[in-house]
């Protein structure tokens, strides 16, 4: 480790920090610096071109009015687009509410269900591999496919659910996807079906990696199964727990595909992401309004990200 010509740049990086702090002469060779520069520079460039520049342009366009034709047609309008989104655009507040419900459902129902499945399947029960595969299958399907599968379940007259309930073809048949009072919940159950499997696999991996001696020690100390789970296993799984929480947030904010497949996110299935797409892409493009909606979604998304980063960095110190 005294040589600085190590071919693995990661090692060089690790090594450099204490040296620099110690105030000693830098011993990086020219090619090291080149490799390092490329490794830092290329991702930074990609990040800038694909994320930061578009973000700044979006923020810029969100305070303008533009028809997408000549650049000279861009007119500044201050906060008009935000006012439009927050005050005049009827789907906006329902979309916010639906995103919050989405988050609540994932956090309170789907994620705990996934954790529960993981804990149960971690026991030495029979056919545990089979169950794992069954619950994991939906995760391997794209959400678009999940949407199509569930449409077969929810269809009003031909659907599985109404046929099981015996209401298919009658006037009492619930229109699971068309009735705005129930369709959000129908979509949430379809999403939860997939989300729980995802969380299960993550958690199961964590549980398998847990040092078995922890459990042994707990049981020698006379802890019950429940005590072991809540007092020993969960605290030891801290990192996975945080990961699961972050994933739940991300899934709730980027929810899009399934409502898009059902009815393009209208009639009770409005979500922020859908409004952004509707206003920015395709026939309904209104660049200013769409950009303002995208910026609002960005701000909403930043909240959990900032909380997560603050926690992570605080711990690192």
């Amino acid at each position, binding site marked *: 480790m005294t040589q600085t010509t190590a071919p693995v740049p990661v090692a060089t990086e690790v090594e450099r920090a204490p040296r620099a702090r110690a105030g000693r002469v830098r011993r990086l060779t020219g090619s090291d610096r080149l490799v390092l520069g490329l490794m830092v520079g290329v991702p930074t460039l990609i990040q800038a071109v694909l994320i930061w520049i578009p973000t700044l342009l979006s923020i810029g366009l969100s305070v303008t009015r533009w028809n997408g034709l000549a650049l000279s047609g861009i007119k500044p309008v201050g906060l008009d687009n935000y006012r439009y989104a927050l005050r005049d655009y009827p789907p906006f507040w329902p979309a916010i509410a639906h995103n919050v419900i989405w988050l609540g459902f994932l956090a309170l129902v789907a994620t705990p269900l996934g954790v529960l499945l993981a804990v149960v399947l971690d026991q030495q029960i029979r056919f545990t591999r089979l169950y794992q595969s069954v619950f994991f299958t939906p995760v391997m399907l794209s959400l678009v496919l999940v949407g199509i599968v569930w449409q077969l379940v929810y269809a009003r007259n031909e659907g599985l659910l109404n046929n099981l309930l015996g209401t298919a073809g009658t006037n009492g048949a619930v229109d699971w996807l068309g009735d705005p009072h129930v369709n959000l919940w129908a979509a949430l159950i379809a999403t939860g079906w997939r989300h729980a499997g995802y969380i299960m696999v993550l958690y199961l991996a964590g549980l398998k990696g847990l040092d078995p001696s922890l459990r042994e020690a707990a049981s020698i100390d006379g802890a019950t199964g429940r005590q072991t789970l809540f007092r020993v296993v969960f605290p030891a799984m801290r990192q996975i727990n945080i990961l699961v929480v972050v994933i739940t947030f991300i899934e709730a904010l980027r929810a899009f595909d399934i409502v898009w497949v059902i009815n393009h996110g209208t009639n009770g299935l409005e979500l922020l992401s859908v409004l952004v797409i509707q206003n920015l892409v395709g*026939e*309904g493009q209104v660049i200013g309004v769409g950009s303002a909606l*995208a910026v609002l979604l960005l701000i909403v998304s930043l909240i959990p990200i900032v909380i997560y980063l603050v926690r992570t960095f605080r711990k690192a110190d």
Partner: protein
Amino acid sequence: MHRRSVLKGTAALGAIPILAACSGGDPATQAADSKATSLGSGLADAVPKSGIQAMVDLFQQQSGDTVRLNVMPRDQLVNNISTYLQANPEDVITWFAGYRMRYYAGKGLLAPVDDAWETIGKNFGAGLADASAYQGKKYLIPNYNYPWAVFYRKSVWQQHGYQVPGTWDELLALCATMKKDGLSPIAFGDKDGWPAMGTFDYLNMRTNGYQFHVDLCAHHESWDSPKVQAVFDNWTALLPYQDTGALGATWQQAAHNMANKKSGMYLIGTFLLQEITDKSIVDDLDFFPFPAIAVEGTDAIEAPIDGFVMTRRAEKNKAAMDFLSFLGTGAAQDAYASKDSSNLQTAADANTSTFSPIQKKAAEMIAQSKKVSQFFDRDALPAMANNVMIPALQSFLKDGKVDLKNLETQAKTLYAAA
């Protein structure tokens, strides 16, 4: 999600150079005596694509000019039309009548095609001519169209002894009778959001007249007016007779409700015949124009027109104009229809001997109409149709309420940005 969304936010900017790089025309060849032209076609599905190819082949064979054909997916053409027209478009492109054509004509991105209309104008009635014009100049060569009408099964109507309603009151009375007879009077599927616009268009044209409808769509009239309120008042009377599950059903499902004799009638375009193909049912189908309400009788019909426009840069290309003149002839449209018979040729000298009885009747209805509307999403700013009308109409179907003041506020913002 937000990153992707933000990315798409600048797709408009990004698309300019990308599209410019993609489309292939070479401006250097645009001499006045050129023997070459090009066609950008958004008809990418196999059947319509072969129809366009047949038109191109026939023109090349007849004129000796060459046409370079660039076929792209419909969504690609429609969604990127602004950047496409500004970049390096083909000379002629497949496009639509109505506001969608006028908007780009008004921005100077399309060239007038009056020269072509001088030779082929006699092929088109007043309704089609009007729909192809902007500020006194023609910008579109119609190819085919598909009218909207009220379809029904003759056997069902015979069984119950129903008569075709000519007026609004007769329509409502018929609906009430059908309900008593255990039928759902009007089949309706609005899960995709756009089919309800057909009902709105007809109610508005019949209540306030064609001109008001077009002006409202172009936002030359205010939404927050008693005239628009009257449209929704009429709709409130009709709403109890439309399928209650409309918000969860597609137009195809609604079509089968009528085909299965559960519903008495169905307001839809003739593309219905692409969904209902069972010969015994097709032969049992008939239709009537949407009944008169207050003004203009049934003079105006809704019949979206698909056709061709010329891009600005091809203005001086004689081959392009010759090609457009050709596209407006019956022979050209017959070449198309020989591959894709689901629509109606618009040229008067087209061969109609292959038409089914129902197509013949539809063609007559168009020929007799004085005004042709283009469906809300083509007569209005697309953003207005997509982002405002779909949610507004769906919420109206849900609880019978509509906030006209808010519609006007939204329209003001969107049209100001257009």
